[in-house]
């Protein structure tokens, strides 16, 4: 979209502001000036010519007066006045002369001729008439000529008009000549350069401008072409950079989308199968953390080289970023071959690498998707392979997961649930069920574990194992924990009301809450609101959550214990099973994971383990809880090994509170035993 905008913006600009060509601008800039200068020059010349004509006319008339005076002198002196008149009349052929007169020495007009009534700008010249002969030289009289500048005016006017016309014609001719020459010398080269730029803009390639001339435009074009050449190289490099990962030199995510487009076209037939392997390195973060980012980069380069070596020429390898790689084999015979290819890739990756003189064995998971080349949803291949990858990463890291219907279904279900979380909260779809913890000695219910359930309107009751990771991913852990806390407090109220105040409720505390210092305060506030004692609450934590943030976890646990709540370590035996943890943290209880229980009493090993745990707990003063007791013999075995409490289907399945209360009601009458939960060590001093 941005690109489109960029592409169209200049066009819009070009349309909005009509392009002003250089040629036209030149013509507009020069031709009026030329015209004005020409007209001014012409006018100047003409005005000077006008004045010169006026002067010439004055001089000519003066000469005429003088010459006529000479001619007239004798007849005037000799009083041949008819001759005077006729000689005077002759000058009237001069059309500038309006009138003429000859006066004798007495000042009387001897002859007077008038050509036309003086209309405008009449000037006058007067000259004495001298008569000389051998004996005398006298002034016989005077000649006066009145003349008009009208002919000069008319002459000048017509010449100005002619000059104007000639000037206009010259300007017009100049205009044409300029237009033609400017088009040839400027317009064409510019158009050639422009066209090269337009073509370059259209397909991003650098086209040269085709100009052969040797003038400045020729030089400009050569410079432009040189620049185009440079740009072309830069564009190529830029294109390569845009499409490739600078670290490994492999095509990048952007290339992948482009490659996917061409895949179907490049395939031999629409039925040929395409194998898409989505590779994710396992624990690449660990590599980075352990060896540093430079080594991490080196590691990635190694992996990319291995992938390149492992594939055939027709295969396509890309790095999408981070520790994600993609390998596409454009044609595989069937899904099994594809799977074999993926495994082959895994094997290639798994060769040990030396980093800082240490052997590192890379591990990766592959999500494999196989699709027909004609599949219209070929562009979804990365997403599909990612589903498989997700499965592999979550279910079996270091393996190849092939995308199948089930996985896709799972994926869709996961997606659905994830999207439904907000609605789940809003509509109260999350329910807290309770499973009892029982004293193995007397079978009395001493506590309840609050277990979350999702009553989904379409999918029915969903267990926490499925949706808790989704809750965590969507960032709703705290909300859910408070929901459970609130529900538990309400349950405690009801237990008290039902006369079972001794029954405590255990809440699973996710690692994120353990890191939250405010949780303890919130717990106290909630207890206060429902008027229940925090000591009625038990908080179950996992070993993993302790390890991730030991300091803050320890802090939170101490606060909770100060409030009176008890702390239980859940799922003990499956994780680190650190004895140090048992000592270090303020724990009250340890819950043995059901994995150790299920094979008991048959498995001697498990019995030994549980026995060790039990003796250890006894030594440390921790109460032991056996989870997943499903059969009486298991309960018996536990009891024999000194485990005090048990939990499992043998006793009760998790049920809504009402059902639990009902059951407790029924059982209550005969023998309600009170398990006094008294922590052997004051919590305050536990740590």
């Amino acid at each position: 979209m941005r690109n489109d905008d960029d592409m169209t913006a200049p066009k819009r600009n070009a349309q909005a502001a009509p392009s002003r060509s250089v040629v036209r601008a030149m013509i507009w800039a020069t031709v009026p000036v030329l015209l004005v200068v020409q007209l001014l020059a012409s006018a100047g010349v003409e005005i000077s010519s006008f004045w010169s004509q006026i002067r010439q006319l004055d001089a000519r008339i003066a000469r005429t007066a003088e010459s006529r005076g000479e001619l007239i002198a004798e007849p005037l002196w000799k009083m041949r006045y008819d001759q005077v008149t006729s000689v005077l009349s002759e000058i009237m052929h001069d059309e500038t002369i309006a009138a003429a007169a000859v006066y004798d020495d007495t000042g009387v007009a001897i002859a007077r001729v008038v050509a036309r009534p003086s209309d405008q700008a009449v000037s006058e010249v007067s000259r004495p008439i001298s008569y000389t002969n051998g004996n005398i030289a006298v002034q016989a009289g005077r000649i006066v000529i009145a003349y008009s500048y009208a002919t000069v005016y008319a002459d000048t006017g017509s010449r100005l008009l002619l000059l104007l016309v000639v000037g206009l014609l010259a300007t017009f001719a100049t205009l044409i000549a300029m237009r033609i020459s400017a088009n040839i010398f400027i317009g064409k080269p510019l158009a050639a350069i422009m066209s090269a730029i337009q073509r370059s803009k259209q397909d991003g390639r650098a086209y040269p401008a085709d100009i052969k001339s040797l003038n400045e435009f020729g030089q400009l074009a050569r410079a432009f072409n040189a620049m185009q050449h440079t740009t072309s190289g830069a564009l190529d490099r830029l294109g390569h950079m845009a499409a490739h990962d600078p670290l490994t030199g492999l095509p990048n995510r952007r290339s992948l989308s482009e490659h996917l487009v061409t895949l179907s076209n490049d395939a031999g037939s629409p039925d040929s199968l395409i194998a898409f392997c989505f590779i994710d390195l396992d624990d690449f973060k660990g590599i980075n953390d352990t060896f540093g980012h430079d080594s991490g980069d080196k590691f990635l380069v190694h992996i990319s080289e291995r992938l390149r070596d492992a594939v055939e020429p027709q295969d396509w390898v890309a790095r999408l970023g981070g520790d994600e790689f993609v390998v596409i084999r454009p044609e595989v015979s069937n899904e099994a071959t594809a799977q074999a290819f993926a495994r082959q890739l895994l094997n290639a990756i798994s060769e040990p690498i030396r980093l800082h003189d240490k052997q590192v064995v890379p591990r990766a998971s592959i999500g494999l998707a196989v699709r027909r080349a004609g599949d219209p949803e070929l562009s979804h291949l990365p997403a599909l392979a990612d589903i498989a990858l997700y499965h592999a990463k979550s279910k079996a890291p270091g393996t190849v997961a092939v995308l199948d219907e089930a996985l896709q279904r799972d994926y869709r279900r996961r997606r659905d649930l994830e999207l439904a979380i907000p609605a789940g909260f809003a509509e109260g779809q999350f329910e807290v069920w309770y499973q009892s913890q029982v004293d193995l000695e007397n079978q009395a219910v001493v506590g309840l574990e609050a277990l979350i359930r999702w009553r989904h309107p379409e999918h029915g009751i969903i267990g926490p194992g499925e949706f808790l990771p989704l809750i965590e991913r969507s960032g709703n852990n705290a909300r859910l924990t408070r929901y459970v806390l609130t529900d538990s407090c309400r349950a405690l109220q009801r237990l008290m009301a039902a006369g079972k105040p001794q029954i405590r409720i255990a809440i699973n505390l996710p690692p994120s809450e353990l890191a939250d210092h405010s949780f303890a305060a919130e717990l106290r506030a909630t207890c206060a609101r429902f008027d229940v004692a925090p000591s009625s609450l038990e908080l179950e934590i996992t070993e993993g959550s302790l390890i991730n943030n030991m300091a803050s976890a320890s802090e939170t646990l101490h606060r909770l214990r100060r409030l009176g709540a008890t702390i239980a370590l859940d799922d003990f035996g499956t994780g680190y099973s650190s004895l140090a943890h048992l000592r270090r943290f303020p724990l009250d209880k340890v819950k043995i994971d059901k994995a150790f229980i299920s094979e008991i009493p048959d498995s001697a090993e498990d019995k030994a383990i549980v026995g060790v745990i039990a003796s250890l707990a006894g030594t440390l003063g921790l109460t032991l809880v056996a989870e997943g007791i499903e059969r009486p013999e298991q309960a018996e075995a536990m009891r024999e090994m000194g485990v005090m409490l048990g939990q499992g289907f043998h006793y009760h399945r998790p049920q809504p509170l009402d059902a639990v209360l009902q059951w407790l009601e029924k059982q209550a009458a005969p023998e309600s035993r009170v398990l006094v939960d008294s922590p052997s060590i004051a919590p305050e001093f536990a740590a």
Partner: protein
Amino acid sequence: MTAVLRILLTMGMACGVFTPVGGAAASDAKPLNIVFVNPGKTGEVYWDMVAQTMKAAGRKLDAHVEVLTSERNYRTMQELGLGVVTRPDKPDFLILSNEESAAVPVLEAAEAAGVKTLLLSNTLIGEDAVRLGPPRQKLKTWLGDITTDLQTAGARMANALISRARAEKWQSPDGKIHILGIGGDEITPASIARNAGLKLAADAAPDVVVDRMLFANWTQSEAEQVTANYLGWASRKEIRPAGIWAGNDPMALGALRAVTAAGLMPGRNIEVVGLNWSEDALREIKSGRLLLTDGGHFLLGGWSIVLLRDYADGCDFAAASAHIEVKTSAITRTNLGSVGDLIKNRAFDRIDFTRFRAKAGRCGQYDFSIDALISSLASLEGTAD
């Protein structure tokens, strides 16, 4: 050989010397055949009278005078002259007038043809005179010329005006006597001489100013026009015009008309003088409007025949000079009675031309004065004398 030549030459010289003497003595010599190419127009008074006196003299002196009129066309004049010299029967003498120097080619043709020529009234001038030299040298047949002394005539006319004006005290406010001169033209010797006479007289009189020398092409109308112009100018200049000097009678008559038209009274408060002895002028003299008319040079026609008669009879006028210059005379109211009738009636036969012939031994010496003329008439009238 030489001796024979010397004898022949001596005989010839003897003949040359004695023949005229014999001729002069013998009054009944052979008749002469004379042709005159008249440059003037028929009806032109002066030239008509020249031809008439020529003929009258011919009759008296046994000479046949043939007059060819060129009607004021000098081309015609030349053609006529050339026609005469190429005649098989050539005349004894050819009389030409060198008006506008048109006679020169004819003179030269006559030289070639051996026809003797005489120039009348207008002789060679300027370049022609220099080139051809005096008579009878380069052109052997050119015998000489007979002209009038018109400069003296001009001066006499002017002086008459001046005397009259002085006597009448016709001075202008500036104390000067103002005169208008009207010349015929400025180029012909006849005109130039007259005008020079006016100037001579005026220059000699410090109280006289010739206001203008105007030219009227010898014609009355133009003279009237320029006179009118002059009078107008003079009145604007507050000049009192005292007299008008006209180069010939027609112009004087034109001046008279203009003067009269201007309200002046000729003869009473202004005087006009002319030249030519024309009939009209005589009438104006008689009426007291014209002061005088100088002239009588039309008698050159008669005088030329006298010269040629004498020459033919052996009394060569060149003995004195080949250039005969005849003085003119003025006709005033005083002498008008004597010659008026002669001119008026053109009764030139009354003139006894024989009386004007050179006396024996005084060849070339002639008295063509008006007194001589009057006495010749008187003798004719007074048969008792």
